[in-house]
């Protein structure tokens, strides 16, 4: 019998770090890149680092595009995308060319339009500004900082998908939620207390 929580191996991700937090929380999970496991899973965590195109290529190579779309939109399984894992939930990404995403959230991913004097990548701890409540942020003080490490950000077409943004000279989408689909631009697995609580909230929800 396979584990209820699948930690998806996308080939370009710091799986080990997310696994470390799950171990710390005492949560059982299975690391997999198998479509059958995705179909059987009750919850999925989708980490991703590097670039939109590369991560999508890895997802495609493993035959996971349709299984993930189905899991999210038809079976309505809770899924948490982290960093590029969140970005590929969109329809299209513009990093190193144009790349099709999973398309479960309308919108695109493009380079942060940082104002003059603001450096890219956006690296470091930043605060969040909330647009709506989310189970992800339960028991997390609103001024809690999370760790960001990216140059590209999501531009959702539906403002209602946005949980919170972060200020980087311009507002940058930090987390999204639509029913069972969750995404965080920052790295909860690297954000100490706040990140541990967020992952616990997703797992226990």
């Amino acid at each position: 019998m396979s584990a209820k929580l699948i930690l998806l191996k996308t080939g370009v991700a710091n799986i080990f770090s997310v696994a470390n937090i799950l171990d710390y929380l005492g949560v059982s999970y299975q690391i997999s890149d198998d479509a059958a496991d995705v179909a059987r899973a009750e919850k999925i965590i989708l980490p991703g680092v590097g670039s939109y195109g590369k991560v999508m290529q890895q997802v495609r190579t493993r035959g996971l595009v349709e299984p993930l779309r189905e899991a999210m939109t038809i079976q309505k399984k809770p899924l948490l995308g982290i960093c590029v894992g969140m970005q590929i939930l969109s329809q299209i990404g513009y990093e190193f060319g144009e790349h099709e995403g999973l398309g479960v959230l309308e919108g695109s991913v493009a380079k942060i339009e940082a104002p003059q004097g603001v450096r890219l990548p956006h690296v470091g701890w930043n605060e969040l500004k909330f647009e709506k409540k989310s189970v992800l942020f339960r028991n997390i003080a609103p001024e809690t900082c999370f760790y960001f490490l990216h140059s590209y950000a999501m531009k959702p077409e539906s403002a209602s998908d946005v949980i919170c943004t972060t200020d980087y000279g311009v507002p940058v989408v930090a987390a999204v939620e639509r029913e069972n689909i969750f995404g965080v631009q920052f790295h909860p697995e690297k954000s100490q207390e706040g990140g541990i609580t967020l992952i616990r909230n997703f797992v226990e929800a």
Partner: protein
Amino acid sequence: MVKNRLIPCLFLRKGMLVQSRGFKRYQLLGNPLVAVDRYNQWGVDELVYIDITPGIYNEQARDDVAIKQHGDILEIIRAVSKRCFMPLTFGGGVRTLDDIGSRLSNGADKVTVNTKAVEDPDFITAAAREFGAQCIILSLDCTRAADGTYKVVKGGRATTDLDAIVWAKRAEELGAGEIFLNSVDRDGTGKGYDLELVKAVSTAVKIPVIACGGVGEWRHLVEGITQGEASAVAAANVFSYKEQSIIEAKRYMVEAGLNVRKLGI
């Protein structure tokens, strides 16, 4: 707005933590894992580990049995990342894309590249393409030349003819995500950062710069940001001996009015 970061820098030599001065004299501090639990408790923003084992860049050290016994870098990364849920950078000895891949898949978030980048600048581009620019930090060690300009020091020892500012700009163009800037002259002196160097590099590039080398007092950390215009300030020795040093440093920076992450948030 993103906070300025305070980053302890830990030097590893044959698997053990060391303190250095001028990149030459090394004093053994001990097991790398002892530090990890302290830093975790005190809300450190990031950790940077640099492997300065002699010969680590070439085959000799990689095959050295003694070094393997003391601590394969990947084992150290795994052990640290198991206890430390914060961003980790592991540099030193990076020569191939596989070196980077294996560090990242064992728990590191970023790597620094130094000698390899100087010898083969296209490596920066290849690495950024493969892993994302945000994972690739240029480690830039500098020394001041007689004419007042700054030269790049390669492999921790060899002063080159390469102008540090020119090289910093080039590395940015090639795809480096950040610069980890160290002054060989100030290393271990406690006299503060070479602020002229920090500012010159920080104003020459649009990627974040992490200043390192020379911190002896907390005000040096503040100066690195206010005068050097660095995005982050790193220090090695000053955090090794003193109890509660991170907490004191952060408190000083907060009181100086800097935009830093307060402990516990």
